[in-house]
C-alpha cells in the first residue's frame, strides 16, 4: 500500500473523528481511542460509518483492537481499502 494512500486514509479518519464524533482538534494518528473519553456508542457509529464509506465490514471489536487511527488505517488496508 502506498504512502499516499495511507496518508489520505489517515487524514480522512482524522477529519471524520473531529467533524462527526466529537474528537478534539489535537487528535493525532497515534492518539488512543480510550484516552478520548468517547461514549460507548461512538466506536459502533464509527465502525458503521467506515463500513458504508469504504464498502467493507468493520465491527466495533475491530475498532477497539485497532485502538488508534493509525491502527484503524492498517486494519482498513488489510481489508483491501484504498483511499
Amino acid at each position: 500500500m502506498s504512502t499516499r494512500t495511507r496518508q489520505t486514509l489517515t487524514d480522512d479518519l482524522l477529519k471524520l473523528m473531529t467533524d462527526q464524533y466529537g474528537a478534539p482538534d489535537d487528535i493525532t494518528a497515534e492518539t488512543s481511542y480510550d484516552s478520548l473519553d468517547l461514549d460507548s456508542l461512538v466506536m459502533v457509529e464509527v465502525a458503521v460509518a467506515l463500513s458504508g464509506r469504504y464498502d467493507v465490514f468493520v465491527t466495533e471489536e475491530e475498532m477497539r483492537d485497532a485502538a488508534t487511527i493509525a491502527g484503524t488505517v492498517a486494519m482498513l488496508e488489510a481489508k483491501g481499502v484504498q483511499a
Partner: protein
Amino acid sequence: MTRYAALAGLGSYLPPRRVTNEELAGTFDTSEEWITTRTGIRTRHWAAPGVATGDLAVEAGHRALKSANLPLAPGAVDAVVLATTTPDHPCPATAPQVAARLGLGTVAAYDIAAVCSGFVYALATASAQIVAGQARRVLVIGAETYSTILDPADRTTSVIFGDGAGAVVLSAVPDADRAGVLLGVDLGSDGSGRDLILIPGGGSRERANGEPDQRDRYFTMQGTKVFAEAVTRMGGSASALLDRIGWPTESVDHLVGHQANIRILKALAQRLGLPEERAVVNVDRVGNTSAASIPLALSDAAAAGTLAPGSRVLLTAFGGGLTWGAAALIWPDLHVV
C-alpha cells in the same frame, strides 16, 4: 384486473401515562443525561396494569377506520393484520379478538411476528392480499405493550421501550400512479442473529432448557451489535428498494426509519447519503415502540404537517429475528385521527 394497495387511513393511540427520564433515572440507577445522549429518548408511554396489546390495537384500529371514513361494521375491511411482539396470549393470535371488538365481522385476522420489523412485514402481506384479489381493504395494525416484558433489572432495555399502537387502512385502487400506492416492498431476515434480540423463555424451546426461570420471560437485547446491524440492514434494504422502483436516493423527501434510537436514525441517513433533516423523528417522545413504531411516526409526522401530500416517503425497519424491510409510497391526502 390489475389492482394496487393504497394507504387510505391512518390512526394511532398512546396510553395516557407518560414516563419521563427523570422518573426512570430514580428507578434504574441511571441518569437523565445517560438516557438522552445514548438514545435521544426523553419520554415514553407505558400502559396501566391490566391494559394489554389488544386494547391499544382496538383504539388505533378504530381511529384508522375513522380516518378512512369506514364504519365499525362487517364489510368495512376484508382482513385484519396485527404486527406485535407482545400478543395478549401466546395462543390464540390477538388479531381475531381485535377484529371482533371493532365489529368487523368474521373477516380473516392474523398476527405477524417480526418484532420491530413487524409493521413493514404486515404491510407487505396486506398489500399482497389486495394485489392478489383476496381483499379489497385491509386494516393493518402495529401494537405493543413492551412494559409487560421489560426486565426491571436491565436498565439498558427498560429506558428504551414504550407502549403504543398505530394502524393504517390499505385499499384497492385501479392505477399505480395514485398517491398512497405502495410502490414496492423489500423484506429480509438472518436467523443466525436470533440471539441478539431474544426472549429466551415462554416458547417451546423452554422445555429443552430445564426448569423455567421467570427472568427468561423478559426481553433481552445486545445493544451495540444491534445498532450496527440495524443501520446496515435498514440501509441495505432501503437502497435495494430505491433501485428497484427507480427513485434516486436524493429524491426521498422523508425517511421514516424504525424509531429505536436517534443515533441509529442519524447513522442511517448518513449511510444512505440523505440530510439528517429528512429523517422523521418521534423516538424522543415515544421511545422504541417496536411494531408500532412506523405507524406512530407516520401519524405524528402527518398530523404535524411534515408529510405533505405528494411527497416521497421511504419506510424502513429492523428488528429481532433478525428481520428487516422497507416500503415506499407517495404520501396521499389523509385526515389522520
